């Protein structure tokens, strides 16, 4: 197998809050293969945005990368000086921030925002930038006559296309998109995902798609990383993770998710409780307080991420019993907490 474009190893990120600190990402390891879409999925607060931003090293003022490596094409980008990292941004690694469509500058036309990147970052002259801006608009399916428009003249979906064009401006190898379709209606959402998939395949780039929605993962991703409370619960080929999940949390997520193609009379089963407060996470497995399969060991020891099938890794003490747990997990009674 060819070497991945990016290997994240044991990444730790913490936020300073009050007098102490919160370990928002506590040892994340995963690979981003070349030419593929990786879905980083989990509920709000599990650390997706923190991981995504750590890779670009554009992090909050109170955030600190406290450990780990991020090997991008042979270089540990966690260790290089900021100047060198800055040279990689846009050119090699582009980031589409969460709600990017609302963060375009309202006082400039989208053309001047594209030019800013193309000329200042890409060193293009005016004419080259103009040609590239038109090409980018064509790529994302917006008429080039609209380059002169201001962000507010576009619908939400169109602004998200502009944000994608901006990210692709300098031909990056990796695009990280943080919740790119979250605020959009289903039809626009689907059209944006189709566009993203098409561009990814055409350009042969890699995409990290951050989302809280497993159906978005199911629609466009090749691989997926499931995060829970700052750690990776499960990682593997998308199809394997969604159809043969090995982590109880992933099993629970599937039960809680309405499926329009499923039976009409199906009942959704919640996972009772809420994720832990990261300022004082439980010892052992962080999912243990909500896990119907927790054993005594789960409350003591952190389960290591182990590879149990080809490319499919799980952090659960009972992962070897996954086939049995899966059968139990589809039953609603399994998830009922004793009153």
């Amino acid at each position, binding site marked *: 197998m060819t070497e991945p474009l990016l290997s994240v190893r044991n990444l730790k990120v913490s936020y300073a809050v009050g007098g102490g600190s919160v370990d928002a990402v506590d040892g994340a390891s995963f690979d981003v293969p070349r030419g593929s879409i990786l879905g980083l999925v989990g509920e709000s607060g599990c650390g997706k945005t923190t991981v995504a931003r750590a890779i670009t090293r554009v992090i909050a003022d109170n955030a600190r990368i406290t450990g780990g490596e991020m090997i991008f094409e042979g270089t540990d980008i966690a260790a290089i000086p900021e100047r060198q990292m800055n040279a990689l941004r846009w050119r090699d690694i582009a980031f589409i921030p969460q709600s990017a469509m609302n963060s375009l500058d309202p006082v400039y036309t989208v053309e001047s925002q594209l030019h800013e990147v193309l000329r200042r970052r890409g060193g293009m002259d005016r004419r080259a930038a103009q040609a590239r801006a038109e090409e980018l608009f064509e790529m994302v399916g917006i008429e080039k006559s609209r380059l002169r428009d201001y962000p507010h003249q576009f619908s939400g979906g169109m602004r998200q296309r502009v944000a994608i064009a901006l990210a692709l401006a300098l031909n990056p190898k990796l695009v990280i998109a943080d919740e790119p379709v979250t605020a959009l209606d289903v039809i626009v959402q689907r059209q944006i995902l189709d566009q993203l998939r098409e561009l990814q395949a055409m350009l042969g780039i890699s995409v990290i798609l951050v989302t809280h929605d497993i159906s978005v993962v199911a629609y466009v991703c090749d691989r997926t990383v499931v995060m829970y409370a700052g750690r990776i619960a499960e990682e593997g080929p998308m199809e394997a993770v969604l159809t043969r999940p090995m982590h109880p949390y992933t099993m629970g997520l599937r039960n809680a998710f309405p499926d329009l193609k499923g039976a009409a009379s199906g009942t959704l089963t919640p*996972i009772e409780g809420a994720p832990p407060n990261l300022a004082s996470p439980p010892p052992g497995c962080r999912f243990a307080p909500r896990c119907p399969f927790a054993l005594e060991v789960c409350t003591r020891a952190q389960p290591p991420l182990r590879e149990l099938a080809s490319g499919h890794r799980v952090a659960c003490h009972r992962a070897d019993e996954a086939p049995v747990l899966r059968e139990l997990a589809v039953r609603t009674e399994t998830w009922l907490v004793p009153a």
Partner: protein
Amino acid sequence: MAGAGMRPIDPIASEPLVSIRDVQLHYRMGGIFSAMRGRSSVVKAVDGVSFEIRRGESVGLLGESGCGKTSMGRLLLKLEEATGGEIVFAGEPVTALKRAALKRYRARAQLIFQNPFDAVNPRFSIRAALSEPLENAGIPAAEREGRIVKALELVRLPQPQQFLDRYPHQLSGGQLQRVVMARALILEPDFVVADEPVSMLDVSVRAGVLNVFRDVRDRLGLTAIYISHDLALVRYVCERTIVMYLGKVMEDGPTEDIVREPLHPYTQALVAAVPVPQPDQSHDPLPIGRGAPDPRNPPSGCVFRDRCPYAFERCPVEVPRLRQVGTRKVACHLFDDTTGKQ
């Protein structure tokens, strides 16, 4: 457990609780700029909507943002005045309600908010937040605590007493959404409008709130409108769905029929677009044109025709009426026998 569609509704025995006839909500927009861009200065948020809701029925109002579903909900609760048409609740025109009658209506018809953090004052304890509607309705102080505890039990908050002196930020999103539901139910309404009540919640907790909603509705025999852009959620709680587009009803019928075989071309695209959590799914392009509906500048004739893959000569010239087609109503010229199609 039975799905939403399995609740026994006897169409003959249950008379309509709500009747809406040709309701309009037109906004006049800031004149000169829109006029200069050649746009009409009237936004038709709701434009000639008619339907009836029977007692005990749960109806989903489905559509994309800007289709008028939230406006429709606000009209129903008289949080907005219709600019045309008539809304009748339990035989009485809502438009004409004044003072005492309006106050009674406000108690009988309740809104469940989208964002639980907007719905309750962050500086009020849960007790205070739930006392407020009781106080407004003139319930004596001595009775209040008992009713509050009962309402919290109804939405399955375990050991309600422990929540009374807490503040919203001390609750999880799922707990707070249950409190919001309890607040809407505390005056024992017979009609509730829930506007995207779980859109701010994480998937793992959302299911619990939806289950409580279904359960409470069945136990109290509530009539409910559930507003959402997500057909999968609507299907979970509503036996009937009304699909809106640019202020108009496109399709209205049993949810399962709509999911299985959507008739209106817009509904077809909407159903095809709903993401499913299965790797094995269609990746065919959606049968719909790109672009977003612009409520300031809707197309002539059928408002969907500029994105419709099947539009023909009649579509730009004539507004399709909502017609009965089998179990459903559909507003599309393709389903008019006189055209000789379908």
